[in-house]
């Protein structure tokens, strides 16, 4: 996939682990794991908005676009 999710750095900055982030964002831990491991097929704007809100960042900080 050309777009990858990089949550590790932002999570480390905030000192959050996957379960805590999932809880704060309001999604299940398995869903957050899917997102972290790059197995998710799509992300809702509401989820992205919440992640950015919790991690205090912008979408471009966590979504990386690379050309195939």
């Amino acid at each position: 996939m050309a777009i990858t999710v990089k949550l590790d750095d932002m999570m480390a900055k905030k000192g959050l682990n996957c379960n805590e982030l999932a809880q704060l964002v309001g999604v299940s831990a398995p869903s957050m794991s899917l997102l972290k491991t790059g197995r998710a097929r799509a992300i809702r704007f509401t989820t992205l908005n919440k992640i950015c809100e919790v991690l205090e960042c912008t979408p471009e900080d966590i979504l990386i676009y690379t050309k195939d």
Partner: protein
Amino acid sequence: MSKYIRLFKWFSLILAASTMVLSVLFLPYFLESLAWRFPEYEFLIDPAMYFIWATSIGFYYIVLLLINICSNAQSGKGFTISTAKLFDRIAVVALVEIVAYMIGFVIASIWIMKANPYLVFLFFIVAFFCFMIFGVCKVMKHLLRRVADIKEDNEYTI
């Protein structure tokens, strides 16, 4: 809904079992009675009986696949690729039955058309019935695959 699926499963099973018993017990007598009416076609008793018994295996297999589909639906796996594959398998079996009955139709047309045209058209009706099963199952397979894809997309959307 689950109650109706369970009922359908049992009904299919009972129907298949009774058809099997009836075909084993009464089919030879029925064919013999036909041979009694048309003695010149007595030589066709055995081929006809074996043909019907052989082609009925396909129908029993279809019933088995239907029961599997019902089980999938009961366990919440109705909209999956595996269910779509079961529908595809039914379509393949129906296609085999169509070919068998069309061959039977041609052979019967040559041998017994003059004696009993209604019996010949019975082959055609069964082939047509199988064609309907084939068509419905192919459509169901296509739809289920699409639904399974959409469901998977939805499950992998965070």
